[in-house]
């Protein structure tokens, strides 16, 4: 089975990470696949992983009663899915569902949390990267909120 190390090492998300931390991450990584329509995670579940998408497309959805699930955003190849593992109370805020057959690398967030508590330098490196993801998602969400294409009165 091919090692995941080159894949993680070349991924822009982990650029600049110390080799020893990279090895640690490889130790927590595994390949996963999702069929089209399958849930990757559901709101309220414990957030113990995050994913690097390799192929396919995942939708972030909100389910509200009496209407079909609303897709807030889609993610695809090379995107990072899931930051709730790094922030208490460590539970997913949204549903994530594969829109088409999707392959990803899953990283064991629960294990990483423990390691980050022990090694704050590792914790800081990961937190820096995830804050950046959150910032991008927040800015995109704000712009989405403005509904710039809506017909005005």
């Amino acid at each position, binding site marked *: 089975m091919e090692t995941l190390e080159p894949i993680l090492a070349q991924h822009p998300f982990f650029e600049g990470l110390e080799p020893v931390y990279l090895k640690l991450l490889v130790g927590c990584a595994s390949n996963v696949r999702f069929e089209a329509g399958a849930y990757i995670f559901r709101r309220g579940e414990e957030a113990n992983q995050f994913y690097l998408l390799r192929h396919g497309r995942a939708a972030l959805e909100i389910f509200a009663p009496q209407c079909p699930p609303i897709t807030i955003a*889609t993610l695809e190849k090379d995107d990072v899915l899931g930051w709730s593992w790094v922030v208490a109370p460590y539970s997913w805020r949204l549903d994530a569902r594969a829109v088409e057959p999707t392959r990803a690398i899953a990283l064991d967030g629960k294990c990483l949390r423990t390691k980050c508590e022990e090694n704050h330098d590792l914790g800081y490196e990961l937190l820096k990267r995830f804050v950046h993801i959150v910032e991008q998602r927040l800015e995109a969400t704000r712009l989405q909120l403005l509904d710039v*294409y809506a017909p005005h009165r």
Partner: protein
Amino acid sequence: MPPTAEESATNGGVCDPMLPNLYRVEAVLRETRDTFTFSLEAADGSPRPRFAPGQFSMLYVFGVGELPISISGDPEHSRLVYTVRSVGPATQALVSRRPGDSLGVRGPFGTAWPLMEARGKDVLIVAGGIGLAPLRPAIYQILRHRDDYVRLILLYGARSPQDLLYRKELNSWSRSPDTQVLTTVDYGGVNWRGRVGVVTTLFRHLRLHPDRTVALICGPELMMHYVIAELTQNRGVSVSDIYMSMERNMRCAVGFCGHCQYGPHFICKDGPVFSHATLRSLLEKHEL
């Protein structure tokens, strides 16, 4: 090559730029629930005036009024083509025209997309909503003279899948060589398997060469603002390589009514296409 804006801003040879020329609706195509594309021919059968991609006309509906509408057709085809979105009573009157109906046309007016300056470079086109319409003539022109350009990248965002324009053409454009077409919508709805997210989220899929990229941007002003921020702050594209199409209230289109002023610029004469370098100091000013 189509004429420059200077060459074509002669109101089609009619002396008085305030008098409309009579055109007839030849065909109407419904693009979405509120957007229609009209193909017009001159009532007297004469050839239409030449235009450059990015220019606009003033379309007159008998007894109702005039609207500034960008030309959305092919500069090398014989018809005058416009894509109009119904957002109020005046546009509603315009989109209710049917084949055989008459419209008054003044123009073409305004500045054009810098297709000459973009030769030998990658062209990045970023369109939001109805903003794809003024860019379509540029896309046609680039594809017709494909060897003059390197990569063609189109990023297109709309409100929902039902609001995406020119879907068949988007498909065929994406199959051209060295051409990337990425689309996204703000609201996905059921059954949508495509991307959901604002148009700026498409940038993460691109590798740009900033020193040989010309960007053409058209859409709601707020959307253009965020796209330009991404290009200048995160991608190193120069402000003089970024072009945008601006919009303001227009009554005459010939620089006399004063309504379309944006700082010292008349959008009708000095625009609607501007380089970002020209407008940079104005864009952050509130209520300008």
